[in-house]
């Protein structure tokens, strides 16, 4: 079984944090995401976070809530969160469940997200 914190690596690219979620994280791994990201935000004075969900196969309400909360916390610290790479089946399921991930920016992939950070392209805001 995974130990909290070991499955989530936060990578710093210039002044942006990159996190890639594993395919099937347990609740402690999801909770570790929040803690590791906030710690790294402070340590690196980061401008924001790119959260790569391209490997994620199951996004349930606990996971979605943690992502939403993390984005809100990052915003309070002056940062921006962009979610990238959600699989079609996961997007369909989340929408049908009513998980809106409201007010979180999204992008198709990491390249597009980096474009958003460098400015020029207007962001997409997910949800209502």
């Amino acid at each position, binding site marked *: *079984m995974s130990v909290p914190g070991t499955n989530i690596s936060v990578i710093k690219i210039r002044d942006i944090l990159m996190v890639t979620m594993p395919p*099937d*994280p*347990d*609740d*402690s791994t999801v909770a570790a995401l929040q803690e590791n990201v906030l710690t790294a935000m402070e340590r690196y004075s980061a401008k924001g976070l790119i959260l790569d969900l391209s490997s994620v*196969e*199951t*996004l*349930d*309400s*606990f996971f*979605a*809530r943690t992502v939403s909360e993390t984005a809100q916390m990052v915003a309070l610290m002056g940062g921006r969160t962009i979610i990238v790479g959600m*699989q*079609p*089946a*996961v997007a*369909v*399921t989340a929408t*049908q*469940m*009513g*998980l809106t991930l409201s007010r979180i920016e999204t992008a198709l992939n990491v390249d597009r997200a980096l474009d958003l950070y460098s400015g020029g392209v207007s962001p997409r805001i997910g949800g209502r």
Partner: protein
Amino acid sequence: MSDSIKTHTAGQVEIKAEGDIVAARRAVREAATQLGFGQTDVARIVTAASELARNVYRYAGEGVMHWRSVEQDARVAIELQFVDRGPGIVDVDLALKEGYSTGGGLGMGLPGAKRLADEMDIESAAGLGTTVTIKKWRRK
């Protein structure tokens, strides 16, 4: 014999620790994939299983998930049954209301699972436990 109900494959996952939610998801993913469900329906049924397994762990502490395949009138379904001997649900209608939670959750688990499944049945008695059964039919 066209309306006979046959059970092909079945299994169960005990839910005793938080990590067993992942074990339940994996078992359902494997079973649904083998039964020929499409990618999106696999995601739906696995996500529903995740919500219901978490409910068992969070509210009852422990329980078990039974899964089986069902064939009826040449149609195939996967059926998941979550059984616990926890405190039970006092008001099932209220528990199915979005945003209602007694466990500090989002109140999305039960109503979310209902939306993702084709059928849902809840049997619960205060103090005796809860059995939630969901079914998802494979699309032709």
